[in-house]
């Protein structure tokens, strides 16, 4: 029965994740708060869940010609470089301060996106 609810939650947040609007955040909240899954495990499942989800969504996005390939190429290049370095750094440093800082930034950007002018 739990598996059914999990699949349903995955489907609903999967639509949001496939649109690129941050469904993973919601799914992690569901796993940690409603299902009592440990934060670390939830983050791992969240990472893994995004792979089939993105695969499904991208077939549509590519067909609709909604990918800016140049942007994607350079973002992936930059992201892989810093991602690997920071994954190693993360084991040595406490990222709590970055987490807080990022939280504040998210609140700011969240407000501006929520109330953005229509034509911008």
């Amino acid at each position, binding site marked *: 029965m739990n598996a059914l609810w999990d699949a349903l939650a995955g489907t609903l947040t999967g639509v949001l994740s496939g649109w*690129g609007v941050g469904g993973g955040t919601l799914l992690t909240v569901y796993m940690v708060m409603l299902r009592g899954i440990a934060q670390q495990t939830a983050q791992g499942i969240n990472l893994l869940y995004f792979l089939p989800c993105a695969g499904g969504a991208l077939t549509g996005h590519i067909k609709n010609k909604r990918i800016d390939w140049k942007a*994607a190429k350079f973002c*992936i290049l930059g992201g892989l470089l810093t991602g690997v370095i920071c994954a190693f750094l993360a084991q040595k440093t406490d990222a709590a301060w970055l987490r807080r800082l990022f939280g504040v930034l998210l609140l700011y950007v969240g407000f501006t996106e929520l109330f953005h002018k229509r034509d911008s």
Partner: protein
Amino acid sequence: MASPVASKTLRGRPTNIKPPFPEKLSPGRVVFLRRETKFLITGGLAGVLNGLLGTGGGLALVPLLIRWGKLDDKTAMSTSVLVIAVLSLLSAGVYVWKGGMNWTLAWPFLVGGLIGGVAAGLLFKKIRGDFLRRLFGALLLAGGVRMLF
């Protein structure tokens, strides 16, 4: 600083003659980065967040691609899905390799994610970008609260 020659040429003829120096080189004007550099930095930031926090790369990508990279909102969103998918592939690999994965717990989410993802790809055309950005804003607020506490 205009040279004497240039000021002589310009005197009394305010129109049709361009100033001797191109406008974009005048002081106080921002020198623009190349688009490639912007994308490289944007992706790099996403990598820092994903690497250090294990999440959040996508939340940084979309606003930056829209505001700084000047992508239209829907293209920014679908492009970020591709970028994060590649970065997640790497992180998920490391995660499974180092810590293993509870597959009994994980598989319903994976199946759900696939169904949701396919639905997202099919519905994307019908959804207004404007609505998506507001939805994104609301979810960012939720993410922000979660990061703080």
